[in-house]
């Protein structure tokens, strides 16, 4: 079986990609309007929505970056995992009801749509759409690049395909992703999320069961090795320290409410009462998948410290190295497919909200109406954004890595700082004003960009995104209280009364 490891892994990935293409073709027949393309006809069931929420949240970062962080820093990054229950719960409490009811009242098809309805402000719509678009370009480029690099690492080990370069891998990865997003829009996206989420959950359970058998003494053995090297690394704060860990915890627990690719899904379910069942589906799936993050990271760190495994060139090699060295070939195949699933499930959600920003929100902000033949232009925009992100990924890899890092800063932390006040608080507090929303969004973008651009190190490992988020929340309240009390439309006021 071992001699077939590479073909088995490649076959698993190909089967998975073909399944995504198949879903795209199936969804094509169910996509008749822009509402279908962006909102799945607002007709999704509990399990599909729950898995879509979970798999959009869990990106490739969790399968590659997560274990890498544990390998590098010990327990520190586990605080991101530990925030799961709080983050989903807070997000559902604040937005699942409100966004679904806004959609019912105004037929909103994007987050900027809901922002414009809430604040009666096209400038707030534009700023929200702009923040989303900037985030989409940076995030999508890094996801496509990650997907291409993983694909290349598989092909290098496969006889006859080892000469395929990164450019071809980027083209293949982007083509599959764009294909099912163009044909089936968000319907294809959420149903592939269902497959992708299931693959991730299964892969994580199998890896967790395998990981601790790879080291003598199991979990206790791994802990003993880590303690002998540096007791703090297996303590609750890892190597980063208490304040750094708590800043991550806060940013991931509260920041989830500001993730547009995730919260947009709250507008898509059939019945508002389904939210009570969607929440546990998302929490349980995410928590199970996070086991991979913890187990691979701890075990690889212990194996390297023990001398049982060669030192890794980079921390992010922890997951691929574990799979190649310790996982059964079939399990490695499933997990590599799971890795693609994690990357693509987030990337497709970004592609969809990016297209909505381009063809729906930005034209509305300037012209008061969206483009004619919105579905047609949505498909064109999806191809254009996918192609631009792929080109951007290659540019960043070969020419200027700093640029993608800068736009990458418009990831989780920036969405959190920009949208938590305007969306999470503003949708639940009638006194919030459009000026305050605009100030909070603009300031958070400037602060996050400034921290990244000038490489500002904050003492005690405190995350810059946390500083930006707390600042934008305080500013949001302050500016709202200092500006004139806003006038709400009667239907929006009725929704906010529920």
């Amino acid at each position, binding site marked *: 079986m071992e001699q077939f490891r590479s073909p088995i892994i490649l076959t698993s990935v190909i089967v998975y990609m073909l399944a995504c293409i198949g879903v795209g073709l199936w969804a094509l027949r169910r996509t008749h309007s822009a509402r279908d393309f962006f909102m799945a006809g607002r007709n999704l069931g509990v399990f599909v929505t729950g898995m879509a929420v979970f798999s959009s949240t869990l990106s490739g970062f969790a399968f590659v970056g997560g274990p890498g962080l544990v390998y590098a820093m010990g327990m520190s990054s586990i605080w991101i995992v530990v925030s799961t229950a709080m983050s989903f719960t807070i997000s559902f409490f604040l937005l699942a009801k409100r966004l679904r009811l806004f959609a019912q009242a105004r037929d909103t098809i994007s987050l900027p749509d809901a922002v414009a309805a809430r604040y009666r402000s096209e400038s707030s719509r534009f700023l929200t759409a702009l923040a989303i678009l900037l985030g989409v370009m940076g995030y999508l480029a890094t996801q496509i690049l990650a997907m291409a690099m993983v694909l290349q690492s598989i092909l290098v080990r496969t006889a006859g395909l080892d000469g395929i370069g990164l450019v071809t891998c980027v083209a293949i990865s982007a083509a599959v992703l764009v294909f099912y997003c163009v044909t089936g829009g968000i319907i294809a996206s959420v149903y592939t999320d269902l497959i992708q989420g299931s693959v991730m959950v299964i892969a994580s359970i199998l890896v967790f069961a395998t990981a601790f058998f790879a080291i003598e003494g199991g979990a206790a053995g791994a802990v003993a090795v880590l303690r002998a090297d540096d007791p703090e690394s297996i303590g609750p704060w890892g190597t980063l320290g*208490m304040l750094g860990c708590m800043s991550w915890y806060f940013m991931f627990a509260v920041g989830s409410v500001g993730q547009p690719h995730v919260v947009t899904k709250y507008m898509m379910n059939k019945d508002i009462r389904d939210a009570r069942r969607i929440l546990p589906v998302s929490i349980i799936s995410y928590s199970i998948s996070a086991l991979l993050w913890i187990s691979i990271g701890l075990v690889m760190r212990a194996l390297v410290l023990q001398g049982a495994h060669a030192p890794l060139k980079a921390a992010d090699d922890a997951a691929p190295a574990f799979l190649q060295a310790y996982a059964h070939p079939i399990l490695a195949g499933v997990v590599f497919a799971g890795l693609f699933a994690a990357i693509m499930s987030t990337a497709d959600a970004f592609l969809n909200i990016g297209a909505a920003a381009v063809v729906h929100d930005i034209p509305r902000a300037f012209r008061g109406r969206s483009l004619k033949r919105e579905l047609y232009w949505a498909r064109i925009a999806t191809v254009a954004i996918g192609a631009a992100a792929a080109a951007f990924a290659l540019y960043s890899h070969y020419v200027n890595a700093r640029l993608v890092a800068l736009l990458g800063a418009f990831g989780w932390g920036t969405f959190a700082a920009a949208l938590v006040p305007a969306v999470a*608080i503003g949708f639940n507090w009638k006194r919030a004003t459009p000026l305050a929303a605009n100030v909070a969004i603009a300031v958070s973008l400037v602060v996050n960009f400034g921290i990244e651009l000038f490489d500002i190190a904050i003492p005690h490992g*405190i995350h810059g995104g946390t500083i930006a988020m707390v600042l934008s929340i305080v500013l949001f309240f302050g500016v709202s209280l200092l500006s004139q009390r806003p006038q709400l439309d009667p239907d929006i006021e009725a929704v906010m009364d529920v």
Partner: protein
Amino acid sequence: MKVWGLVFAIALGLAVTLVVATYWTAQPQVRPIDHPEFAGMQQSGMDAEPDTGLLWIGWSFGALQIAFFAAMLALGARSRRGLRGLGVPLIAASLIYLAVWSALVFTYHSQVSAEEPALFLGFPTPTAWMLFAIWPCPLLFTLYYVVGFDRWIATPQDLAELDQTLARLRTESGAADDEADR
């Protein structure tokens, strides 16, 4: 105090804590450091007991976060009829969460310099508090959402009234449009 006022006050508290933490220099910034043997791996660089002042700032930061979470949950659940009885369960769950958080911090403080710290399920006790108590603790809030949705989040009465209001507004808006067309 109104719920939004509470959220604002706690956010100010968090901002103050972050400012204090940023300027707290009682302990030199030594962590993390690169591992002397393995590239890509770090060590804590801790060769002395942690600064107690910093530990208190950290505890306050965590406690304020718990208060902030609870206040945000209340903000999301609140309707024009108020919290409809959710206030007490939210406070109770928050106190449990705070107790667990305090247990983590104080076991860390008491065990940090121990030669052989106590283990629970293979992990040092403070780490076990984090994995087996802090992680599942917010599920109490999740339980409120799942079990009390019809009572605390969106009552059938609220939703029926909203449907009626939206239908009435649409009728009025349609009539106004017809009037304008004529």
